[in-house]
């Protein structure tokens, strides 16, 4: 049933609007939000693969009755195969991405409803709106539609930061918007230049025009478009130079919001990265830029993470640094590399959300995020401590868990591609990631409790622990049976890697 494809975007938007209406009624919001959030991961599982044309405008070639009256100027040329409608394409890779996004969204909404005393409709609104926007970014085959939802996702991120009530959130939100005010128009300009050269906004059609010599692929305007889209990609996913602001955004959101916002970054990274690879893979230079930026993100993100004393900021920088692994997979350009990169993206979205929610329990109990003032939380909640430790193991890539599989695949792919140095750097930075995590873990859980530390909320909500357990199960399942995920990702990787 292809009618489920637009529903993946429409349902969260409807949820968002509906929740906003029920602003004051706490109980109703809780129940409705959970029921609606349960639909999010279920939809991609139920939907069949296929294309969805909004408005039903299929390409002329699929609708011969319309084409009979038209002159051969239209039916005899490439215009016959072009897509006139906004097209959403739902393939196997999108299935797993939208499912993971829905899962993270569900668990984030779930924890937020039980952690905040008064569930507010606005927070739920922002979360659902962001999920809708990122789902559309993942599904869309229309590059302008992508820009629109990219902007909506940025606004939703700002909204999530604004409602968090953490000191300095307004300042961070304004900085993010000002930088976005420069970067997002640049992305639009890149889209516009592509449109100007090829006369199309549909990605499949743009690639067709480039491949079949309808436009000159070496035209400087196209190179400029590629550069501008890469710049928008840096902004959307928080790669350097946007890594400081992105980690600040993570650290100023509530833990559940941060878990969701980092999933937004990961999937924006994937969606735009795949588009850059699809359109511009004929420029070998674009892959080198992806590799270089990813390396820089890894090195800067992880070295900055060690130096932080703020717990949230530390995980924020780690999340930015881990993005680099995905980029290296994409930048290698081989089928195995791209599969590994996409697999790492799926794992990354789950694990970082797990970590944010895990350390979020500490914030919930104490309200402090400075590692120098924390300590001794292990005694109060050994179960939570164990779960957080497992999340850290997963992020560092300890064997039975999922990131081990994807990092191993990445290292193998980099060796096969003739760049063993990348493998060395990835191993080195994994170790440092683990060290950073252990530093935070030691400071929060293992060290004796400082005398002046007050515990505000004694009990962690059951919902948070359930959410963490679900994340753990996902980590273990993906770690033991990586084929489950990679078989979904393989077709996309083959189509991308086959180009090179």
């Amino acid at each position, binding site marked *: 049933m292809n009618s489920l494809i637009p529903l993946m975007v429409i349902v969260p938007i409807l949820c968002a609007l509906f929740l906003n209406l029920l602003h004051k009624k706490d109980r109703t919001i809780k129940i409705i939000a959970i029921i609606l959030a349960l639909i999010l991961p279920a939809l991609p599982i139920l939907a069949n693969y296929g294309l969805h044309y909004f408005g039903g405008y299929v390409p002329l070639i699929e609708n011969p009755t319309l084409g009979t009256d038209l*002159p051969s*100027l239209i039916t005899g040329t490439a215009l016959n195969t072009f897509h006139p409608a906004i097209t959403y394409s739902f393939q196997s890779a999108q299935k797993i991405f939208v499912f993971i996004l829905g899962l993270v969204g569900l668990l984030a909404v779930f924890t937020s409803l039980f952690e905040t005393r008064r569930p507010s409709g606005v927070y739920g609104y922002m979360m659902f709106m962001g999920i809708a926007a990122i789902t559309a970014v993942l599904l869309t085959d229309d590059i*302008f539609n992508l*820009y*629109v939802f990219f*902007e909506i996702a940025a*606004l939703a991120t*700002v909204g999530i930061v*604004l409602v968090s009530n953490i000191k300095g959130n*307004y*300042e961070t*939100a*304004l*900085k993010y*918007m*000002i930088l*976005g*005010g*420069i970067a997002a*128009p640049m992305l*639009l*300009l890149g889209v*516009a230049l592509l*449109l*100007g050269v090829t*006369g199309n*906004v549909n990605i499949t059609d743009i690639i067709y025009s480039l491949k079949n010599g309808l436009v000159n692929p070496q035209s400087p305007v196209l190179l400029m478009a590629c550069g501008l889209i890469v710049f928008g990609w840096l902004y959307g996913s928080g790669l350097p130079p946007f890594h400081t602001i992105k980690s600040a955004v993570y650290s100023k959101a509530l833990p559940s919001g941060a878990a969701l916002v980092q999933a937004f970054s990961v999937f924006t990274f994937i969606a735009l990265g795949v588009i850059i690879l699809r359109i511009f893979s004929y420029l070998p230079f674009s892959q080198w830029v992806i590799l270089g930026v990813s390396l820089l993100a890894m090195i800067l993100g992880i070295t900055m993470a060690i130096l932080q004393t703020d717990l949230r900021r530390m995980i924020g920088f780690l999340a930015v640094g881990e993005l680099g692994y995905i980029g290296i997979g994409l930048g290698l350009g081989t089928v195995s590399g791209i599969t590994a990169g996409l697999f790492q993206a799926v794992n990354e979205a789950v694990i970082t959300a797990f970590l944010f929610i895990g350390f979020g329990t500490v914030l919930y109990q104490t309200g402090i995020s400075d590692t120098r003032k924390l300590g001794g939380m292990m005694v109060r909640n050994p179960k939570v401590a164990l779960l957080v430790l497992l999340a850290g193991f997963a992020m560092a890539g300890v064997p039975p868990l999922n990131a081990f599989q994807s990092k191993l695949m990445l290292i193998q792919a980099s060796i096969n591609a003739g760049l063993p140095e990348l493998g060395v750097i990835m191993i080195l930075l994994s170790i440092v990631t683990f060290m950073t995590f252990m530093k935070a873990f030691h400071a929060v859980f293992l060290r004796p409790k400082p005398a002046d530390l007050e515990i505000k909320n004694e009990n962690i909500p059951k919902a948070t622990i359930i959410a963490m357990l679900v994340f753990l199960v996902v980590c273990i399942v993906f770690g033991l049976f990586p084929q489950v995920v990679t078989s979904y990702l393989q077709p996309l990787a083959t189509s991308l890697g086959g180009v090179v």
Partner: protein
Amino acid sequence: MIIDTQLASLFTAVALIIIGIFAAAFLDNLIKKVIGLAFIGDGVNLFIVSMGYKAGGIVYIYLPGMAADWFSQNASYPLPFAMVLTSIVIGASTMAVMLGIIIVLYKKHGSLKASEILGD
């Protein structure tokens, strides 16, 4: 040398983008920074619209009595225009959110200086 309308408006667009980036980067007043961002958005929109322009062409509205061939050769290209409509609205809403945050920050800090409010 005579510069035609399309080229001139492309240059105008680029000038607006550069003025906007300059304002957003170097001016210290928050409201002026936001004004600069508005100019960047305007410039990009103007750039897109100028791409769809056709010198000596007609508006892309198909009136009864026009020959289809003549129309398709003379009409401007409407796809960029449809994009700009969306983009204008997105820009306006982003601007509104930014100004809202600025008002909140002014109440908190009593100043509009970026170096004071957003420094560090």
